C-alpha cells in the first residue's frame, strides 16, 4: 500500500470523517485504483471477521461479579445508615427512583420521541451513515455484524428511495440497525431492533418528523423522515411489503 490517502480512505470506510473530509475521501476513492482495492479488501475482511467469535460473559461470572460487588459495598452500610438518617433518605430515594426509571420499558409515546431524537441527532451531527453503500450485500452484513441483527436492506431506487448506507444507533437503550435512504434532498432512517414486547406508538409526527412503527416477527421497525407525508407513506407501504 503506497497511496498517501490509504489512512484517509480507511477513516472514510470506518465512518470516522465529517462532511468535508468525507466528501474529499469519497472523491479520491472514485479515482484511485489502489484505494478502491483497499476498500474492497477491507469489506471482505469485515465480512470474514463476522465469523470470529464474540465471547459473551458467562452467567456464572455475572453472578460472581454481583456477589463481589455486594461484598465490596457491605462495609459502607454503617456509613450509609448515618448518611441516610442525616439526609432523611432523600438521596437514596432519588437513586432508587433513577434505578427504577432505568429498568422501565419505554412507553409508546417516548418511543416516538426517541426515534425522532435519534434521527435528528444523526442529521445534525452529520453522522447518518457509518457504512456508505447502495449495495445491500454490503450494508446488510455490516449491520448484522455491528447491530447483532439482520434487517431488510432492500433498495427502492426504482420507486425513488435510494439506499445510501447504514449505521447503528440506540433506541431507548436498545441497539438498533439503521438503513438509510435518500429521497430527493430528504433522508429517511429505517430503524430495526429486537422486539421485547410493549406497545409500539401509532404513526405520528414529532417536531416535523413523520414516524411510522410496525412489528414483523421478532423485530420492531420504525421509519422516520421529514419528507412530505405522501412520499413517506409510500415508503412505509414498500417497506412493509
Amino acid at each position, binding site marked *: 500500500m503506497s497511496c498517501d490517502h490509504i489512512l484517509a480512505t480507511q477513516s472514510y470506510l470506518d465512518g470516522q470523517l465529517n462532511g468535508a473530509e468525507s466528501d474529499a475521501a469519497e472523491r479520491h476513492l472514485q479515482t484511485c485504483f489502489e484505494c478502491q482495492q483497499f476498500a474492497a479488501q477491507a469489506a*471482505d475482511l469485515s465480512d470474514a471477521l463476522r465469523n470470529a467469535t464474540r465471547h459473551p460473559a458467562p452467567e456464572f461470572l455475572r453472578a460472581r461479579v454481583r456477589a463481589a460487588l455486594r461484598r465490596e459495598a457491605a462495609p459502607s452500610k454503617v456509613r450509609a445508615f448515618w448518611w441516610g438518617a442525616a439526609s432523611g433518605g432523600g438521596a437514596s430515594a432519588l437513586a432508587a427512583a433513577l434505578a427504577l426509571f432505568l429498568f422501565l420499558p419505554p412507553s409508546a409515546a417516548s418511543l416516538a420521541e426517541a426515534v425522532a431524537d435519534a434521527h435528528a441527532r444523526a442529521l445534525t451531527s452529520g453522522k447518518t451513515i457509518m457504512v456508505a453503500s447502495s449495495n445491500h450485500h454490503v450494508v446488510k452484513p455490516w449491520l448484522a455484524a455491528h447491530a447483532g441483527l439482520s434487517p431488510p436492506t432492500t433498495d427502492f431506487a426504482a420507486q425513488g428511495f435510494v439506499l445510501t448506507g447504514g449505521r447503528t444507533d440506540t433506541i431507548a437503550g436498545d441497539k438498533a440497525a439503521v438503513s438509510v435512504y435518500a429521497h430527493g434532498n430528504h433522508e429517511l432512517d429505517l430503524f430495526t431492533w429486537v422486539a421485547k414486547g410493549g406497545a409500539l406508538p401509532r404513526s405520528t409526527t414529532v417536531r416535523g418528523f413523520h414516524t411510522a412503527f410496525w412489528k414483523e416477527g421478532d423485530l420492531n421497525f420504525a421509519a422516520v423522515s421529514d419528507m412530505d407525508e405522501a412520499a413517506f407513506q409510500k415508503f412505509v407501504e414498500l417497506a412493509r411489503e
Partner: protein
Amino acid sequence: MDDRRQRFEALALPHMDAAYNLARWLSRSPVEADDIVQDAMLRAFRAFDGFRGGDIKAWLLTIVRNCWLSTAAGNRRRAHASLEDQELPATEASPEDAAIRAGAQRRMDLLIAQLAPEFREVLILREMVDLSYREIAEITGTPIGTVMSRLARARTQLRESAKDVL
C-alpha cells in the same frame, strides 16, 4: 441501603459482554478473562465516585485493558505456558496448518489471536466493539494517528494470513 451499588450495577453490568469479550481477546484465555473482568468491575466500582458521566462503556473498557496489562505483566514474570499454546494440538506443524483444519470461525479466531497485542486490541475495539477512533485512542492511551496506522497494519496482516478464508 447500598444505592451506590445499584446505580453502578444498572450502568455497568449491561456492558459485561463487551468487557468480557475484550478481556477474552486480549488475554486469549477464558480463565484469565474471568479474573480480569471481575477485577475490573471491582476497580470500577471503587472508582465510581470519580466517574463524572460520559461514556461508561469506554471508561469500563479502559479499566479492563489496564487490568489485563497488570495480569499480563504478572504472567511474564511467572513465565508459565499460556493457555493459548495448549489450545493448539501438539501434532500440528504450525498454527497455519491448525487453522486450515478448523472451521471458518475457529480459523478467524486463531488468526486474530496471532496478531501482536497492539494490533489485536485496535482491531477488536473497532470491528467487534464498534468504537470510534477517538474512543479507541482514549482507551489505549495512544494518539489517534497511531490508532489509524495500527488498524491499517492489523487489517493488512490479517488479510495476508487469512487469504484462504477470504
